[in-house]
């Protein structure tokens, strides 16, 4: 088990969003968390990435309590891409991706040849060759999202948490980003946990789905096990037909209407 939430209670201030939740992420899997707006999926992801401290329970990274590990050490094991991240104005792609090396640097080792190679590799992997010197704000939405993923890759971790990496992207760009995630998993054996809204893409690109509602895990398993008509009704109040995706053979959700 790479990453584990044990009885975590999560919230902001006095507002509890998730209470007593258990979840385990196995090595080498792509896990996608799905659920309606406000169900706590992003909150859970933030807790797994130690961006949010649980008020109860614990998060374990490779069996150790994540809040007791030095945060810089965690950053060398686990990379997080927050939801809709913002960068300072005028920053270039190379400067952004170079930030990913921060956990490996000290005041006397600010930019080693290893750092440079890792950034160059991350840029190449995300298809940003030749765009390094371009300001981030001049890129298309898809390119910008790939630049952020590239930063997380430059961090050199084999565990990646991505919070809605496809938000605000058109379908082609969504597929582009998810193909990249699949490559990272398939070729480099990375463990990926992400939050997605599109159920059909989630089914196609994840080997494990976790369905949440109101702060609880309702179902977890393969896309075939999780994406069933009764579960869609329970989790999303959605009446839908589930058929086979003619391309990938994964479940395909065809909405009928919202149940009242």
């Amino acid at each position, binding site marked *: 088990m790479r990453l584990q939430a044990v009885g975590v209670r999560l919230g902001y201030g006095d507002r509890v969003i998730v209470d007593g939740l258990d979840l385990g992420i*196995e090595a080498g*899997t*792509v896990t996608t968390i799905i659920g309606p707006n406000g169900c706590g999926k992003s909150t859970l992801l*933030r807790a797994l*990435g*130690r*961006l949010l401290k649980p008020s109860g329970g614990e998060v374990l990274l490779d069996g150790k309590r994540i809040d007791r590990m*030095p*945060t*810089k*050490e965690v*950053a060398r094991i686990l990379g*997080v*891409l*927050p*939801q809709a*991240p*913002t*960068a*300072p104005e*005028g*920053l*270039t792609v*190379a*400067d952004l*991706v*170079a*930030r*990913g090396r*921060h*956990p490996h*640097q000290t*005041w*006397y*080792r*600010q*930019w*080693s040849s290893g750092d*440079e190679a890792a*950034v*160059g*590799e991350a*840029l*190449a992997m995300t298809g*940003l*060759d*030749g765009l*390094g*010197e371009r300001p981030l704000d001049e890129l298309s939405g898809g390119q910008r999202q790939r630049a952020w993923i590239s930063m*997380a890759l430059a*961090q050199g971790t084999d565990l990646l948490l991505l919070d809605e990496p496809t938000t605000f992207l058109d379908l082609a760009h969504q597929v582009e980003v998810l193909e990249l995630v*699949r490559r990272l998993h*398939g*070729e*480099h054996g990375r463990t990926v946990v992400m939050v997605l809204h599109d159920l059909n893409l989630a089914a196609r*690109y994840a*080997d*494990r789905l976790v369905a949440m509602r109101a702060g609880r895990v309702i179902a977890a*398993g*393969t896309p075939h096990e999780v994406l069933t008509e009764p579960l869609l009704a329970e989790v999303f109040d959605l009446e839908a037909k589930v058929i086979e995706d003619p391309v990938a053979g994964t479940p395909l959700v065809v909405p009928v209407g919202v149940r009242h």
Partner: protein
Amino acid sequence: MTSPPIPSPHPEGVPPVTPVPVRLAHERPLRLGPASWLLRLRSAAAALVLLAAAVLLMALNMRLGDIPMSVAEVFRAVTGDGPDHFVVMELRLPRALTGVLVGAALALAGAITQAIARNPLASPDVLGVTTGSSVAVVGIIVTAGSAAGGAGGALASVGVPLVALAGGLAGALAVYLLAWRGGLDGYRLVLVGVGVSAVFTNVKYWLLTVGDVTDSGRAMVWISGSLNGRGWEHVVPVAIALAVLVPAALAGTRSLGALRFGDDTVTGLGVRTNLARGLLILAAVLLAAVATAAAGPIAFVALASPQIALRVAGVAQPPLVVSALCGAVLVTAADLAARTVAAPAELPVGVVTAVLGAPYLIYLLVRARRGARA
């Protein structure tokens, strides 16, 4: 818990990734064995030019006084022990050095504050330091005025700076406590700071109106910021503060650079966000408080120097060293102007910086509005 593996698009094996060459926007690497640093050549050049300008302006400033001298005579008096040695070393050099150090400290405080607040309009005023000092000093002069007037120089040289320091730190603490909410958010800090500063400023004016006319007059000179009669007893505390806090601030530069991003991104990169931000703000508060204690709240230096510095250095975030040198040049140049414009009368240096500051502030606001519309 087993699941079918995702089919790899490359069943025959993973194709190697060829890293692309990486060129950072402003920095060039310097590598010595396992150690490596990032250099900013333009910033380094700018720093050298500003340092030379500061020394030259100091020399020009030290010509002025009861015995006018040439720049050459000033240098001779500093190095040798001619008849002017005492005047230059005991009166003119400490005054000029106070200007340089106070300018550097204020500018550094401003650069840190602006970087953390992610706002070019932020300055140590926003941290409650300068306004806190002003209220405390005006309060002590106005309430203990006649008694303190008897004490004369002793109060002015020791009492007032101590009161200013305490007031500045108390003001900062008030802002910090009001802004803290399970963490320190830059935007919230600015809003709380502006509010607290407004309250302090109004208390200050109230104290000035209820105070005795002569006391209020003396208080006014202090709160406009002046280098008049500053000696080694003013230089030493600021020098010590800079000697400790400049290395501390420079050590935090990398975290400061990271703090320009959203908190989640920064935390994800392994920065202890609240700790780094807290320490950097503490450094800014101490720098501003010590500088204000030495020369009063010299307006506009902390606000403008970082913005001038980032344009000179061609970078996106106020560079610390270049900002500090800009502040030193700015205060020294303003003091030179303050002493020559209405000669033989001397204006407080803060009057000159305030006159320069008003149009600059309007320019910043207009630019910010344009930016918002675009």
